């Protein structure tokens, strides 16, 4: 694989861009692999990448029902932060955030990581107390966050309305090293690196069954035939329950649609990410100038990838209170993704009731920010057969044992 560089751009400019290679090979499945990863989204591709890079396991296939990065990886609002309350969460999200910092160099693919800072507004007395607690927790965890005053908020985000009609801004939790990245590029960068290591990325190949005997998986049946494997990793977010059904176990997961929308592009007006959890809306500005807006999740199970219409109204209403200047913006697109919600709003990484089958799911409404850390940890878990230190707390058995990593309380709604 030829490396991308400033020199490569100059070279290709001189020969009419005829020398660019395909970023990854279009592969047909072999008969057998050491490891099969189901799901070529960010988490699946990152798992495969770190299996190859950190553990030298390169006879790997990544199977995808649709197209690469076409699920929640391509549907999120690209926010990266690690200001979580619980130690287990802070550890894995901070690992991910720190890997994002050098991911472009690591993959030789520009993922456009922009550590522009993330503000979480405190709009009630309870939220102030909650975020102050998070700030203290973060200090102990080594995550840099700071609780700031309304005056500082206004300095960072001049377009904000501090004395809104329902909930005035009373302060904010500020993570200066959080930010955004180009979500598609994260999937593409990992895919290119995986393909370069000799891994097969097989798109439009749906898993229809999981073959097993005495609790050991021998392979999967797909729409492109049967493929054998020594280890199987299920990394399919919203459809985890469907695959678990095939494998014969149940997951503490319910799938709902979460929405996002994007406005027409405007001149730069906000260079940070702002999250308002009480009124429920969050917003950042993309490099193209669009305001990227995260909305609400449906309260009932569904797989529609569109979501209920009234959530758009609720989200937009909340954001107009917070940013009156956006009231005349036209919205360009709206979409939904199927998020896999666990009981404690924390992910599941680790072993399953099947001996050589591992699962990584339950990231719910906040998976994008975790991609590198999740892949790193899942790869270590699959390579050694035991959860690594990052994954240790996130096992499936925690529900049965009552060891929740309860972020639903800590994070409110947006997460």
């Amino acid at each position, binding site marked *: 694989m030829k490396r991308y560089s400033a020199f490569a751009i100059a070279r290709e400019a001189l020969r009419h861009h005829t020398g660019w290679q395909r970023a990854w090979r279009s592969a047909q499945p072999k008969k057998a692999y050491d490891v099969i990863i189901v799901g070529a989204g960010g988490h699946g591709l990152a798992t495969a990448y770190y299996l190859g890079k950190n553990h030298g396991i390169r006879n790997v296939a990544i199977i995808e029902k649709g197209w690469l990065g076409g699920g929640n990886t391509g549907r999120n609002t690209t926010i990266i932060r690690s200001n979580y309350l619980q130690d287990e969460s802070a550890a894995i999200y901070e690992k991910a955030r720190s890997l994002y910092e050098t991911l472009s160099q690591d993959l030789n693919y520009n993922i456009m990581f922009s550590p522009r800072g993330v503000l979480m507004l405190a709009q009630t007395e309870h939220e102030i107390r909650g975020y102050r607690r998070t700030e203290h927790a973060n200090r102990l965890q080594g995550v840099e966050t700071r609780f700031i005053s309304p005056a500082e908020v206004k300095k960072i985000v001049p377009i904000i309305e501090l004395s809104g009609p329902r909930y005035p801004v009373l302060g904010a939790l500020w993570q200066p090293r959080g930010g955004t990245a180009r979500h598609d590029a994260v999937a593409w960068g990992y895919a290119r690196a995986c393909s370069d290591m000799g891994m097969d990325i097989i798109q439009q190949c749906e898993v229809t069954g999981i073959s097993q005997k005495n609790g050991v998986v021998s392979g999967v049946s797909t729409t492109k035939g049967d493929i054998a494997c020594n280890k199987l990793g299920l990394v399919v977010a919203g459809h985890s*329950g469907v695959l678990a059904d095939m494998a014969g176990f149940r997951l503490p997961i319910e*799938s709902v649609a979460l929405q996002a929308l994007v406005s027409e592009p405007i001149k730069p007006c906000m260079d940070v990410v702002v999250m308002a959890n009480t009124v429920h809306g969050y917003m950042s500005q993309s490099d193209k100038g669009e305001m990227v807006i995260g909305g609400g999740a449906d309260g009932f199970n*569904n797989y529609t990838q569109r979501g209920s219409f009234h959530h758009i109204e609720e989200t937009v209403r909340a954001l107009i209170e917070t940013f009156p200047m956006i009231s005349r913006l036209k919205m360009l697109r709206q979409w939904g993704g199927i998020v896999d919600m666990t*009981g404690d709003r924390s992910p599941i990484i680790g072993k399953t009731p099947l001996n050589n089958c591992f699962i990584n799911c339950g990231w719910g409404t906040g998976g994008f920010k975790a991609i590198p850390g999740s892949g790193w940890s899942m790869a270590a878990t699959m390579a050694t057969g035991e959860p690594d230190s990052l994954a240790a707390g996130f096992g499936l058995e925690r529900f049965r044992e009552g060891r929740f990593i309860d972020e639903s309380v800590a994070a409110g709604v947006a997460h």
Partner: protein
Amino acid sequence: MLILTCPYCGIDADETDLAPGGEAHVTRHGADASDDDFEAYLFHKRNPRGVHFERWRHVYGCGKWFHAARDTMTLEVFGTYPAQTLVPPKTLQTKIKKKRPDWKGFKK
């Protein structure tokens, strides 16, 4: 918008008038249950892609709980029925089977 007919007051209620209440026909295990049963009761909710039976409450209406059969893929509503039923009515099951021949039937 999802519209469900309340089986008590007969009103076609928008989803904004309703509150979703999760999976229907769950066996509520108590303190004397085995670990497996209690774990399943608390966490192992059915999450099918297709036919699903749910509890809903007509909060901004008569205030009563009822059951609904719905397709989670298309949002098609097959029917609603009162909460005081342990299994979905036979007529409703037949109707669903007709519309979704692949459906494996209601399992407790």
